[in-house]
C-alpha cells in the first residue's frame, strides 16, 4: 500500500518512512508543498500524511488545492500546530484526521489503517472475502482459518485487490500501488507475485482478465 509523506524535517521524515516501511507500506516522501502537489496529481495513494509548516507552499494550501481538484484521497495532517483553532482549520480545509507532534508511531499506523478502511467503505478492521481473511493491523492472512505465510509484496498485492472486489486492476495500476519512486520494478514482478498468491490461496482466487488486468471476483 502506497502512502505519500509530506514532511520537511529530515529526521522526522526519515523515521516515519522507516517506521511505516516496517508496517509494509511503500512510502513516497516529499519535503515541500510544491512537491506534494505534484505527487498528488501524478500517483494514486492510499493515504497522505501531511505536515502543515512546509516550505514553498503551506500544508493547508496543499490540502485545499487537492480537495478543490476533487482528489478524495484520505489525508492525515501531522503537525506541531496543536491549538484547537488550528485543528478545526485543518479538518475544515479537508483533512480526514489530525495528529499532533510528537506522536506515537503505532498510533500513526493505526490511524492510517483506519483512514484506509473508511476510504474502502468498510467498518470491520479485518477484510473478509470468502475463505480469505486479511488483518491489516497484524498483517496476518488466513485461508479457512489456517494462517498463510505471505511476503510483504504479496500481502500488499492481495490487499490492493481485496480493497474493491470485482474491480479489475491493470499491471501498471498494481505497480503504482505497490512500488515507490525509488524502487526498480522488474518487468514480470507483478506476474511472479500473482503466481505465488494463487499457489498459496488457490488457483481461482485471482482471475486474469486478458488484456486488462487482474481481479478478485465479487461474491
Amino acid at each position, binding site marked *: 500500500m502506497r502512502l505519500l509523506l509530506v514532511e520537511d*524535517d529530515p529526521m522526522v521524515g526519515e523515521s516515519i518512512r522507516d517506521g511505516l516501511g516496517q508496517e509494509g507500506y511503500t512510502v513516497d516522501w516529499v519535503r515541500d508543498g510544491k512537491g506534494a502537489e505534484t505527487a498528488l496529481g501524478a500517483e494514486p495513494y492510499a493515504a497522505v500524511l501531511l505536515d502543515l509548516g512546509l516550505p514553498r507552499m503551506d500544508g493547508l494550501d496543499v490540502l485545499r488545492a487537492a480537495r478543490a481538484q476533487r482528489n478524495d484521497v484520505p489525508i492525515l495532517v501531522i503537525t506541531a500546530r496543536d491549538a484547537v483553532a488550528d485543528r478545526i482549520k485543518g479538518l475544515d480545509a479537508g483533512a480526514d484526521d489530525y495528529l499532533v507532534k510528537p*506522536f506515537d508511531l503505532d498510533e500513526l499506523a493505526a490511524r492510517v489503517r483506519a483512514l484506509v478502511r473508511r476510504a474502502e467503505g468498510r467498518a470491520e478492521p479485518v477484510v473478509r472475502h470468502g475463505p480469505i481473511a486479511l488483518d491489516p493491523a497484524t498483517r496476518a492472512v488466513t485461508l479457512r482459518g489456517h494462517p498463510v505465510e505471505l511476503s510483504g509484496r504479496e500481502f500488499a498485492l492481495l490487499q490492493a485487490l481485496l480493497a474493491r472486489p470485482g474491480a479489475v486492476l491493470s499491471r501498471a495500476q498494481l505497480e503504482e500501488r505497490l512500488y515507490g519512486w525509488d524502487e526498480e520494478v522488474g518487468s514480470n514482478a507483478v506476474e511472479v507475485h500473482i503466481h505465488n498468491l494463487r499457489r498459496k490461496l488457490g488457483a481461482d482466487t485471482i482471475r486474469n482478465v486478458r488484456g486488462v488486468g487482474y481481479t478478485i471476483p465479487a461474491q
Partner: protein
Amino acid sequence: MSSLRTRLLVALLGAVLLAGVVASAATYYSARAEIGALLDEEMRQVALSLRDHAVLDVSRLAPGNGDPSQRVVVQIRDPRGVAVYLSNAATPLPLARTPGFATITHEGRQWRMFTARSGPQTIQVAQSTAVRTELAAAAALRLLVPILAVLPLLAFLVWLILDRGLTPLARVARAVSARSSSSLDPLPAERLPGEVRPLVDALNGLLGRLGDAFALQRRFAADAAHELRTPLTALALQIQLAERAQTDADRAASLAKLKEGVKRATRLVQQLLAMARLEPEAAETPLAPVALDALAQSVAAELTPVAAAKPVALAVDRAEPSTVTGNEEALRLLLTNLVDNALRYTPAGGRVEVRAFRRGAEAVLEVADDGRGIPAAERARVFDRFYRVAGTDVPGSGLGLAIVKQVADLHRARVELTDGLDGRGLTARVLLPAA
C-alpha cells in the same frame, strides 16, 4: 515621616508659627523702645512739674497710690543728701551722680531714674523697668495669641486643601494598585496636574516597554515550544524504531540516529538559552574592549576540526588590529554562529574565509564562503527566528542568524549579507562602531 500630607502640614504650620513668633518678637522690641521713650518723658514731666510748682512744699506730696510695682517713686533730698521726701520710704533709692536719665540696679531690681536739680535740692523720679517690659510683652502677646488660637483651624484647612491637592496622586496610586500583574494598559493621564503628569507619563512609558518585553517573551516561549516539538517527534519516533529493530545492525543504526537527534535537540536548547541570555534586560556582563582580530583567530582555531572533517578550507585571511567595546562572550557567539553557518552550507572542498579589519570609524568582521549562498530575496528574512530557507536539507534550528542579529543589535552594529567568494556563496559582514 513618610506621608507627604503630614510632612507638608507640619512644615506649613511650623512656618506659620515661626512667622508669628518672629512678628511677636519684633513687636516686643519696638514696643519696648516706644514705651521706654514715653515713660521717660512722663518721668521728666513729673520731675519738672515738681521743681516748678511744688518746690519745698513737700507736705503736698501724698504718698503714692495704685499698683506699687507701677508706681513712680519720687525722692527729694537736700544738698547734703538727706532725704526731704521719700514716696517709698521702705527702700530709698541711692542718689544719681549726674542729672538726667540713668538706669540703676537697686536691691535686685532695675530702675529707670530721672534726676533734676532744683536750687539746693535734688529731685529724683524713678520707675521699675519691669513696667516697661510687661507692657511690651503684653503687646507682643496680643499679637501671638490670635495666631496660636487659629492654628488648629489653620491645620484643619491646610489638611483639607492638601487632601484635595493630593487627590490626583491618590487616584494614580489606586489605579496602579488596582491592576493585576498582567494588565499593562497605560494609566489614565487626563485631568492630571503638571506635577503628577510626568510621573504618570514615565509609568506609562515603563508599562509600554514592559508590555513589549512580555509580548516578546511570550512569543519566544511559544516559538521555542513549537520548535522543540519537531526534534522531540524525531526522538520519539527513533526510539520506537530502535525498540522494533530485529537485528543488531538495525538497532545500532537506529541508536546512531537517536544520538544524532539528541544532539540536535540539545543544540536547539543551547541556542534558545543563548538567545534568552542575550535579551537586553538579561545582559549583565559589563562592556570591555574586545580585539576582533584575536577573536577571529580564536574562533577559527576552535572550528578548524569541524572544517577539517568535511573538509572545508577554513582560514583567517585578514586579521588587522581592530578593537570594539563590547561583550566578548556575545561577540564570540556571533562569530562562531557565522563561521558555523558557513561551514554547514559549504560543500566539501569549499572555502571559508574569516576577516577582521578596520574601515574608517567601523570595525568589520567578515565571513565569506563559496557555498550555496542565500538568494537575494531571502536575505532579509533569514534573520527571523526559526526561519529556514526553503529546500534546505542541512539540519539546523533556524536560530543561528537570529542570534547573530541579536548580538549585533546589542552592540549597535549592522549586519550585511552579500555575495561570497568568486561570485558564489555568501559574505556575512558585521560592522561595529570601533573603540
